[in-house]
């Protein structure tokens, strides 16, 4: 009897404990990642789908409960709308002239920062300082610097005899806006590249320099191929950022910021979305612009994916 009890009773607590332990082991990972997914479901996925639903309706900002079915009417209306195409083109051109030079300069800066040198810490903090400046503050400052009459930029350009109007002309205004983007993000990207470059084994450079490769050859033949995943990452992030561009053109335009200049010369898709949804109060059409942006990003992603796959296959084949 006594032995029986002793055999039964002691495992009782460990069994309960080990079940708890196993439950803890199984469930806690999900508990830890739950906040992210709950937050994403509530503030990301659910609104995303709702936006899609809204885009098929006519909805007034002030009477959002009255929804009138439009089918794909909002989308076909976009298709035949000049302002939409202008915004799309502007988003693309501003995206290219802000992203491409930015990433190229960031690569160069990262390469320079990777050298052994004095004052390295200062240079790194200095080029990251624009990152700490907000879109609003940076844009307001650049509005001053680009002022056609008394701005710093035109004061310097007077020396070479050109005097562009950085607001009213299409290309100058887009270049000015791209300058703000480039100024704010180049240093940050340079540091990301630098992180990747520091992970490249030093022996590769040793071997190359012994084989007589100069610094440029080392850069193009060793550095670039080694950090290709990071470059791809920054390209993707910058592409997304460029698609969403809003604050810079909005504030750059001052009183006519929402329409992206008096002739929409620098209106981006995000600005167009905002103009449709809020000042024009047409939430349905604005939702259609939002979903068009998502489809465009998916399209760009698909193209990038196909290019990398083609290149991989090409390299394997060759």
């Amino acid at each position: 009897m006594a032995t029986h009890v002793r055999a039964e009773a002691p495992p009782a607590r460990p069994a309960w404990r080990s079940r708890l332990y196993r439950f803890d082991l199984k469930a806690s990972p999900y508990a830890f990642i739950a906040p992210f997914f709950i937050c994403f479901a509530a503030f990301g996925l659910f609104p995303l789908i709702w936006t899609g639903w809204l885009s098929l309706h006519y909805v007034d900002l002030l009477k959002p409960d009255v929804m009138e079915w439009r089918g794909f009417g909002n989308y076909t209306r976009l298709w035949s709308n000049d302002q939409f195409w202008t915004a799309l083109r502007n988003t693309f051109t501003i995206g290219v002239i802000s992203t491409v030079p930015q990433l190229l300069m960031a690569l160069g800066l990262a390469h320079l920062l990777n050298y052994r040198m004095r004052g390295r810490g200062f240079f790194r903090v200095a080029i990251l300082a624009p990152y700490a400046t907000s879109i609003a503050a940076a844009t307001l400052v650049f509005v001053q610097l680009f002022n056609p009459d008394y701005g710093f930029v035109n004061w310097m350009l007077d020396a070479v005899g050109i005097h562009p109007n950085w607001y009213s002309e299409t290309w100058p205004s887009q270049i000015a806006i791209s300058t703000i983007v480039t100024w704010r993000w180049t240093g940050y990207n340079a540091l990301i590249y630098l992180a990747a470059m520091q992970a490249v084994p030093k022996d590769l450079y040793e071997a190359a320099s012994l084989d007589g490769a100069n610094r440029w050859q080392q850069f193009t033949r060793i550095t670039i191929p080694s950090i290709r995943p990071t470059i791809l990452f920054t390209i993707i992030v910058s592409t997304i950022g460029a698609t969403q561009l809003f604050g810079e053109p909005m504030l750059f335009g001052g009183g006519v910021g929402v329409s992206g200049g008096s002739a929409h010369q620098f209106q981006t898709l995000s600005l167009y979305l905002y103009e449709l949804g809020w000042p024009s109060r047409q939430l349905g059409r604005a939702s259609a612009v939002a979903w068009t942006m998502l489809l465009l990003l998916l399209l760009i992603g698909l193209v990038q994916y196909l290019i990398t796959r083609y290149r991989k296959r090409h390299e394997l084949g060759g």
Partner: protein
Amino acid sequence: MAATLSTPSAQKAKHAEQARPSGLFRRKAGDHDKAGPVAYVLLALAAVVSLFPLYWTFVAASNTGERVAQSPPPMVPGGQLWTNITTAWDQADMGKALLNSTIVAGCVSLSTVLFSTLAGFAFAKLRFRGRNALLTLVVATMTIPPQLSVIPLYRIVTKLEWGNQLQSVILPSLVAAFGVFFMRQFLSEALPFELIEAARVDGAHSLRIIWHVVFPIARPAMAVLGMLVFVQSWNDFFWPFVVLTQQNPTVQVALSAIGGGSGHDINQAVIMTGALVGTLPLLLIFAVLGKHIVGGITSGAVKS
């Protein structure tokens, strides 16, 4: 850095002896990662370009509006800073804006750091079904533009009568995919499995492990992530601009009011003062902690 540099130099000597006996080549090989004068000049130029707009903000904020609107533009600070600050304070509620931005950025960075560390730890060190698929999903969510959720969120917020209230800015950013990924990358390298196993053998449950093992090790990365999120949240523009008004603005929304007006009577110096006041808190953080932020970004945060 010193430690990583010493190893290659030892290898270097060996390489050089084997490959090229000539002293000339050995010298060249040893200097291969040392910056030349061109590098210094280019970096100095980049530093000037990066810092000049910030310096000029201070110059413009300390001059009179008339002086700023003259060509050539002023290049040295004037004595008008205090007058401009009081004017900017009257024009937009800068005091309230600074307080609001501090509250928002503080809440957002605290909760993002906490939740990201938990999720990052789970993704880095715990085994569970669907881990890789879920991590891919986390990264994929980064690509969705916030514009896609703005319209429904705006409706939810107005339904709850949260328009113009800070919680409508705080709640959607309680945790960020970027933060989860950041902490995951850090913890998969910094936290040894043995430590978790040892804690488990000692009978610690997951929350104890989080508190006594994960947090102490993750602290430097948590600090860096906190600063990055604080900067991002402080500078966030689109959603606060949509949902808040000038009665209860964040700094960025207040700045959009100072800069958004049109007309010729606008005082450019006051605009620049607003930009200065709105940026100064972050620049101070940067001046003090910049090296740590740089270290955090370069220590493999976004190596993938």
